[in-house]
């Protein structure tokens, strides 16, 4: 069965999805970090996105070139949104009907893993229904102090540590499964 992987780049104090943080994050993107990010992408064959990530990514990725951009632009994207209407751009389709049911069906199909980058309402829904197989937190060695956090507003969630890997820049990958 295909796995759903949620991958997020976070500051050491758990701040996520904050564009102001990106210049700081890039300082720590050594070649081994990039290799991990490449492997994550190339071992998957579909992206799962909420509306906000879809809108952001669909604008930026088509303007980029290179191996990673080509792969992301070509791969199918499944978007969860109550407000967007078909047709979507960027080789994306809306998940119709019951999100949880549709995600379960997607997992049963043949194929590689599916990745969600970043976190939001879709992640919460998936977590609450036990659909996330792997969380990959890429933790950078700086604190940011302000902004939204990775699990804001959710109830306490327990996880199972699967892997802890250190990169040259002091970034760490912590990989968890749902407990």
């Amino acid at each position, binding site marked *: 069965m295909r796995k759903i992987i949620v991958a997020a780049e976070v*500051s*050491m*104090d*758990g*701040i996520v999805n904050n564009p102001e943080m990106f210049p*700081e994050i890039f300082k720590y993107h050594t070649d081994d970090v990039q290799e991990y990010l490449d492997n994550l992408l190339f071992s998957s064959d579909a992206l799962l996105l909420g509306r906000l990530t879809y809108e952001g990514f669909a604008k930026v990725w088509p303007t980029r070139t290179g191996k990673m951009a080509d792969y992301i632009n070509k791969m199918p994207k499944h978007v969860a949104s109550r407000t967007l209407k078909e047709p979507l751009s960027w080789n994306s389709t809306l998940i119709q009907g019951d999100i949880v049911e549709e995600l379960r069906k997607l997992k049963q199909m043949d194929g590689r893993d599916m990745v969600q980058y970043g976190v939001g309402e879709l992640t919460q829904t998936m977590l609450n229904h036990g659909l996330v197989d792997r969380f990959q*937190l890429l*933790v950078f*060695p*700086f*604190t*940011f*102090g*302000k902004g939204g*956090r*990775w*699990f*804001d*507003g*959710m*109830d*306490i*969630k*327990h*996880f*199972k*540590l699967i892997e*802890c890997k*250190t990169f040259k820049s*002091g*970034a*760490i990958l*912590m990989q*968890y499964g749902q*407990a």
Partner: protein
Amino acid sequence: MSKLKLQMQISLDGFVATTDSKPVISNWNDELRKYSITNLERVDYILLGSKTALDFIPFWAGVAANPNDPDRQLGKLLTDIPKIIFSKKITKSTLANAKMENGDLVDEIKKLKKENGNDIIVYGGVDFVSSLISNQLIDEYHLLVRPAALGSGMPIFKQTTNLELIKATPFSGGTVILKYEPAKK
């Protein structure tokens, strides 16, 4: 010159306590206990804020006095090591093995580091630790990252601080201990 070490449990989403000041999570175990004991080697003082001291000191004295408590050895260390309690208002301490410090936080800690050969450690509370961090007084961070996310709670970092990862150690039970130092400028 001595180092000021911080040791604290932290959730995956960066909280060191729940909003009603409860600790992050349980499942304390033997490995974490041993780590805490080792972290007290060459430590001459435990720093505390005045609110935390009222809980911390009697709690660990109780643990140390209980022959059946698995944390007895840790409790004894935490009880025997002298405490320095920072407070603007309280001038005299009624707590055992503790002296009050009414002076300026930055000045007093810098003096302590200069005069002292061995290290100093702090475990909390949240406001006290946040001040130490924003005044750049912590020399070593020992963060016990628990395999849980709280969704809300009390953070200790209020600004950007660049760090250098010294070591990341996964423990059984899913906690990862991250040891950081402030990044060298």
